[in-house]
């Protein structure tokens, strides 16, 4: 489909006059609209493409013109294209029309824009801050503005976050966190329950906020690449791959076929060790320790394999512009294939043990159901989305190397913990099969990443399907190749909302199981 024809159709259908295409490349199109028509344009794309808001962010890039820019991204899987709606907001009147009432998946992004830039989403009923907690951060300091200077150290605000109150006879609140019983990231869960079932769950995050997006600004590509690996440690490779792809697009650096295959192998290895850890985690959260320990053995074997192949257990320091810095020698390939054989044996035992345990299967079946409609409304993506009948997987939308191995996306419809377990079981085996095929196709003997390229000003979206779901890096470079703005979206940012709906009606003791079946990132969400 030609994007110009598509835009004409939308203009006529939704009676919008101002949109014009300001920039286009193979998989991205940027459409500028007036502030008045921004909401209608977003809703039009949302309806036409059946896409949730994938990313939605502001930037402070035109100080001389005294405007902020806001971009809202949608994905059209059929057309293999990202649609950005771009609007400029004058800094003397920092208000933009909220779309959160029509598109729920936009709401958190608008709260983020408000706290980071001080732009007011007019009409959004909830503008509480997400990451800059009221207790420690005074009002009026917007970190992502270019002229930001921090508040005085040790500022005491005396303010408290307002949780949603559930009132009625016999309702009690259970606050949990931010420090949890396990070895896990920090977050606060506020349950409202009457008797056993949970009536409301409010999840407060932001405890691992480190100001990562601000840290990117002013950094060279090399430094920023390192930083991208340290945002979410369990998806370090997917993050750095997404970051590299954004830069590769801007600077026209080609990704060779071998590089595509190598990246796919590492991304699938990352998926495997995380999926098996989650499968074990679900077993331990219902008190079934034998398979949990078997899963821990498989995970450890995979981390040790990563170490042997890439020199890092979490696959850091191997992505580079144009590809990866490691090659697989013939010995490496033999090691990879023989390790996978023994992992396959262990994994099939793990699967058998879980599936032959009636009490385990009974516990995960129908627990924590996330209905498809709720998932669609909140833009739930990745493993959790696929378990609720949302087929989106960036590996099938933008297949690249996956074309050659006939990738089969996973799909379940029931949306319960069992469905999420099944997705992981399926994807683990599918990843293993694909790695074996990839290894057969690889004829790489030397690293052929371009060492010499000219960086230039520009912007672009890099993306990768991490084991949790899509990771998006929108990067803007200045003429010297220095990062001017970097917006990161992890699928967890959408999916945490899904979790708070999936637990409704379940008992609080099932929360760890529900939580584990999603296993969302704290660090990737809080940035």
């Amino acid at each position: 489909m030609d994007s110009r024809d598509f835009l004409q159709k939308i203009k006529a259908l939704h009676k919008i006059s101002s949109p014009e295409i300001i920039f286009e490349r193979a998989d991205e199109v940027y459409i500028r609209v007036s502030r008045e028509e921004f909401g209608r344009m977003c809703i039009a794309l949302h309806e036409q493409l059946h896409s949730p808001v994938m990313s939605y962010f502001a930037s402070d890039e035109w100080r001389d013109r005294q405007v902020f820019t806001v971009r809202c991204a949608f994905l059209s899987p059929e057309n293999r294209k990202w649609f950005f709606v771009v609007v400029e907001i004058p800094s003397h009147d920092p208000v933009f029309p909220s779309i959160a009432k029509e598109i729920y998946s936009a709401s958190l992004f608008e709260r983020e824009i408000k706290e980071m830039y001080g732009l007011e989403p007019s009409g959004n009923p909830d503008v509480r801050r997400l990451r800059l907690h009221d207790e420690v951060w005074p009002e009026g300091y917007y970190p992502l503005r270019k002229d930001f200077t921090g508040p005085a150290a040790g500022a005491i605000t005396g303010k408290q976050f307002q949780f949603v109150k559930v009132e009625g006879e016999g309702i009690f609140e259970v606050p949990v966190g931010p420090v949890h019983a396990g070895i896990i990231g920090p977050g606060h869960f506020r349950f409202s329950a009457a008797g056993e079932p949970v009536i409301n769950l409010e999840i407060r995050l932001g405890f691992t906020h480190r100001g990562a997006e601000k840290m990117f600004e002013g950094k060279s590509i090399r430094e920023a690449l390192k930083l991208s690996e340290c945002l979410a440690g369990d998806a370090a490779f997917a993050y750095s791959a997404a970051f590299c792809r954004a830069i590769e697009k801007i600077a026209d650096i080609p990704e060779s076929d071998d590089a595509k295959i190598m990246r796919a192998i590492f991304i699938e290895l990352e998926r495997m060790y995380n999926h098996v850890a989650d499968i074990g985690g679900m077993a331990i959260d219902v008190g079934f320790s034998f398979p949990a320990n078997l899963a821990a053995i498989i995970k450890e074997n995979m981390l040790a394999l990563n170490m042997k192949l890439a020199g890092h257990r979490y696959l850091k320091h191997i992505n580079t512009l144009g590809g990866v810095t490691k090659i697989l020698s013939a010995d490496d390939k033999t090691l990879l294939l023989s390790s996978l054989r023994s992992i396959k044996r262990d994994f099939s035992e793990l699967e058998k043990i879980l599936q032959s345990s009636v009490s385990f299967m009974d516990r995960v079946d129908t627990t924590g159901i996330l209905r498809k409609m709720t998932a669609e409304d909140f833009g739930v993506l990745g493993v959790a989305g696929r378990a609720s009948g949302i087929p989106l997987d960036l590996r099938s939308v933008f297949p690249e190397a996956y074309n050659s191995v006939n990738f089969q996306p996973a799909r379940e419809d029931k949306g319960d913990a069992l469905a999420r377990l099944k997705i992981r079981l399926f994807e683990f085996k599918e990843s293993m099969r694909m790695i074996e095929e990839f290894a057969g196709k690889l004829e790489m003997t030397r690293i052929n990443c371009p060492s010499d390229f000219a960086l230039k000003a520009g912007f672009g979206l890099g993306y990768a399907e991490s084991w949790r779901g899509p990771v998006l890096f929108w990067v803007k470079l200045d003429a010297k190749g220095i990062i001017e703005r970097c917006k990161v979206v992890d699928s967890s940012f959408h999916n945490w909302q899904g979790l708070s709906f999936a637990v409704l009606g379940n008992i609080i003791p099932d929360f760890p199981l529900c939580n584990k079946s999603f296993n969302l990132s704290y660090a990737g969400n809080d940035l």
Partner: protein
Amino acid sequence: MKEIIKNRILRGIATKPIMGSALNISPDNESIGVELKEIIKSRFGRSFHIREVDTGSCGACESEIIATTNPIYDIQRFGVDFVASPRHADALLVTGPVSKNMLVALKKTYSAMPEPKIIITLGDCARDGGIFKGSYYIEGGVNSVLPVVLHIPGCPPQPTDIIKTLLAFLKQS
């Protein structure tokens, strides 16, 4: 149940076959551990309990700490364990560059601990903020907040590094 028993019999003890396997995960694991166990037995009444607090780490450090408890390293057999409450802990193990949002929680966890309140940091971020040093939202290192007596370096440190560093510390202190 049948599958569990079959697996249990055929596999034996997980630590054993892995020592000699092609992956060769942890050849010097055992000797370190035995030494560690003796020290913990004499100085901490057989159990050295640790409470872990994440103050903004990326999660890789947590993954490696969890790995020390897997059947291959199985740090618990030497008397070290990770506990759910600071009330039960001899030591506090802190990761991450201390996000402003975690400052109060970290201090509260510390004050809830009984003596000897040993503070250990783990990972490059926890030492001085690491890659996030200079950010507007971090305190920059745990030692600006609590009296740290041991740092386990790495991004993230590997399970054997964690066990080794703990041993060296317990030996000399």
